[in-house]
């Protein structure tokens, strides 16, 4: 009889964590493959508007323009007015041309004539600022633009 009771111990066997590294590595590889390095440090708020009639952005031929209110940590210095960011710094409407030509120079030469300007604008911004940017783009003859949005539909909010 004692032969059987002897085996029964009160301790729970420890959970094996041997496969934990495997699981974490799996996650790691997933993120390494599915993501890209951040290129710019955002200086403005970016709550993109929603839309569902969208096309995919061709990343190899695009230049990004960000616009919106300065982020929380820059509010004291730059105020609450909507601002434009190209590359890693704030840009004035009058300086867009220079900043964009510089950004265009970084693209592959074959694609420089097919450049698409991607506008990433916070949904709280006034349209006036966007209009100013578009006017400037027309002057620069960069007429292909794309308004970057997030999936969804604005109608759901009303």
């Amino acid at each position: 009889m004692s032969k059987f009771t002897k085996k029964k111990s009160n301790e729970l066997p420890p959970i094996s964590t041997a496969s934990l590294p495997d699981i974490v590595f799996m996650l790691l590889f997933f993120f390494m493959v599915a993501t890209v390095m951040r290129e710019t440090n955002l200086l403005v708020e970016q709550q993109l508007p929603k839309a569902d009639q969208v096309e995919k952005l061709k990343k190899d031929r695009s230049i990004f323009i960000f616009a919106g209110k300065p982020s929380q940590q820059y509010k004291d210095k730059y105020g609450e007015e909507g601002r434009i960011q190209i590359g890693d710094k704030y840009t004035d409407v009058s300086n867009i041309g220079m900043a964009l030509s510089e950004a265009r120079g970084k693209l592959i030469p074959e694609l420089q004539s097919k450049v698409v300007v991607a506008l990433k604008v916070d949904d709280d911004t006034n349209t006036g600022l966007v209009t100013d940017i578009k006017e400037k783009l027309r002057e620069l003859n960069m007429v292909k633009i794309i308004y970057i949005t997030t999936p969804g539909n604005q109608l759901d909010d009303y």
Partner: protein
Amino acid sequence: MARRSAPEVNAGSMADIAFLLLIFFLVTTTMEKDKGIARQLPPIQKEDSTPPVLIKDKNLFIVLVNKNDQLLVEDSPMKLKDLRQAAIEFLDNGGAPSNSPENCNYCQGKKDPSSSDNPNKAIISVQNDRLTSYKMYIAVQNELVGAYNFLRNRESQRLFGWDYTDVKKHVDAGTYVGDRKKAEGNLKEIQALFPLKLSEALPKKTGK
């Protein structure tokens, strides 16, 4: 001599190292998810260029958005959710009489003579205030593009048996299976039936 087994390497810290790397990648990278509404801006008009072609009033669908994000469509207030249907009805109207050269033989609209003659002639004009929110601006653009996509899908279903938006997405992404050249030609054909004619006037400064 007894064979001594090699001591096992302690792999307990492997998980910690992997976590460290994982967190590094989570923080420094972003997901590729940039999608949006593509648009072509009109080139700058020179001062001395030819005067603009007169557009008939009935071929113009005017959408006004004021600084409080309210819509005025063809002189009457409208809710955003009704905009798409209104735009579809306007574009698809085909009001030209059947004996005129402007007759639209694929339109399924009401053939109302007081609305647009032909999708080729129909122009949607959006006018917004400088203080309109960008959110509303995109919402309006989205609804109008939605109206065009609806009509293009309908025509491509009728002519070729597939959805315009579906095939366009695959052709753009390079994942289209089959004759790509032919598909591109077909897409062009559909685009010619319902050309995207969205005009944007410079916003007025009434909001100031």
